[in-house]
């Protein structure tokens, strides 16, 4: 009897919850959409002899600084984005956050790197990504211009000459024999043709 009452109470509770959820569906499902707003993030770059600093300033639609907004800083690499800065980078009371750019990061042949600043998973603001190209990286010569020494680990064009000579000689000698045998087989065929003629 006791369990029956307990079951009915649970059933009633769940029904009420469902009822409330149905009639407030826009609040339950669309809560985030209604409240979130756009944040404006402006990037500036400070550079002196010793350091390179990325400065991000976050303001809301009324141009007031946003405090305690977490931003994520990345450098675009070949396969994924490299995070830079601290683990958490939050804006101060003036809406500013500063992150130091590592001095030894390789860029393209001219030293260009792509800096990404992301606003993600905020309760109040929509996600956004700002992408800027800066000439702050260490220029990396393109593979064509690397002055690579001939070695086992070099690119195909820089294989060690003795290795190329040995392998080519081996391949050439064995395939010479193979083609010579094929040539003899052609001659055998020719003899047969002449022999079969009356």
């Amino acid at each position: 009897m006791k369990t029956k009452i307990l079951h009915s109470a649970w059933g009633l509770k769940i029904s009420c919850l469902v009822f409330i959820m149905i009639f407030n569906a826009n609040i339950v499902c669309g809560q985030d959409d209604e409240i979130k707003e756009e944040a404006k993030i402006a990037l500036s770059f400070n550079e002196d002899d010793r350091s390179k600093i990325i400065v991000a300033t976050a303001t809301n639609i009324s141009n007031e600084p946003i405090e305690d907004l977490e931003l994520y800083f990345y450098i675009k690499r070949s396969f994924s984005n490299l995070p830079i800065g601290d683990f958490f980078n939050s804006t101060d009371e003036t809406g500013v956050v500063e992150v130091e750019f590592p001095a030894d990061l390789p860029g393209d042949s001219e030293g260009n790197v792509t800096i990404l600043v992301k606003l993600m998973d905020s309760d109040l603001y929509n996600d956004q990504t700002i992408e800027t190209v800066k000439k702050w990286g260490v220029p990396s010569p393109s593979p064509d211009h690397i002055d690579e020494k001939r070695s086992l680990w070099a690119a195909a064009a820089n294989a060690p000459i003795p290795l190329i000579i040995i392998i080519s000689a081996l391949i050439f000698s064995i395939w010479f024999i193979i083609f010579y045998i094929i040539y003899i087989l052609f001659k055998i065929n020719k003899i047969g043709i002449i022999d079969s003629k009356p």
Partner: protein
Amino acid sequence: MNTHVKHQQEFKDRREKDLLRHILKTSWRYKLWIAFLVLVIAIGMYGYYRQLKYGLIVTAMRDYTSWGIYISNFVFFVAISLVGSLFSSILKLNKNEWSKPLTRISEIIAVSAIICAIVIIIVDMGRPDRFFYVIKYLRIQSPIIWDVIIISTYLVISLILLYSSLLPDLALCRDRLTVIPKWKKKLYRILAINWRNHPNQLAMLQKVTKILAISVLPVAFAIHTVTSWLFATTWRPGWDSTNLGPYFVSGAFMAGAAAIIIAMYFIRKSLHLKAYITEAHFDKMGKLLVLLSLVYLYFNINEYLGPAFKMVGVEGEHIIELFVGKYAPMYWFVQLGGLVLPIVFLLFKGMRRSFPIFIISTFIILGAWFKRFLIVIPSLQHPYLPIQGVDESYLHYDPTWEEWAITLASFAWFLLIITVLIKLFPVIPIKKHEHVSKRHPILNF
């Protein structure tokens, strides 16, 4: 139908009749065997279709065990393919008369095995459509490129070896077999390339045989040595050994000889060739197998004694896993059942009779396959860098049904190629030309 064919077909002598009759009649057993092989291949093809569709994730291969049973199987097939050179070169140059009837069987097995080795490598590639990138972006420093070059070379040499020994018999099939379908007549006519038994033709063919007998040997040694270098040049416990080349080559000759004995047993039974493949042949093969197994045993001791004596770091862990750990049952089955016991048994004459030696050879072949498994997989599970924070599936390797189905299908392909070649061509040389070379009578075919 068969009696009808027999009545129509006339043979010059008994040898011709015995060695050509299987080309004329097709038994229900043959059809059933072919159907079975095709069924196994079809299941394997379905497994491969799934692998192509979903990627290599359908296999149990992960970051550490990135070479699974496909590569073990590849090494096994390369090993088996060496048997062609054993008969066509080593035994021929050593003037062994007894091995002559077995030469063609060995060449057929070699061709079939090397084709399967090539196919299985492509199966192992996650993106087979990128195979030609291997050629396009060729790096001569890569042992994989050496393997690609040497395998394709060995395939061509094996095909020429088989073809040149078949040539006089192809002409005989063309001239003698009258009651065969048109396509077969055409096939023999094209393949016989106007062979008329002309003395000049005989002299030229003899020259070809001689060149091949000499040149196939270094290529055969190279093919398996280069395969062993794929492992020896990779930094893993168990592979970091200078012994690996001869260890692989000697193991290959042993496995190849066992494969020949199994083939001899079935061919002798199914084609009724007791007069041509005799008990004496099994006896000789038994003795040869003991010799080859002893050489392999010697390299096995070399391979394990050093690391087992020192037990250094990951090398030691690898040895423990093989000797007393997870892979111990397989390891001791391979070493005792597939190597030591066969040597002991084959020392007795009674064990070198056709049936016992067939059973022993089956154990050797099973041992040879699992030996390749033991060479490839346990080593990969012990990288020198510590394994940290990886998915649980990376730590062990249990092949999936797709991998087994594809592997079994490769065996079915192997047997299918052998079966079809045996069905189409005389398996024992019919033509004898002992008179051609007085100076080197053994180089006659």
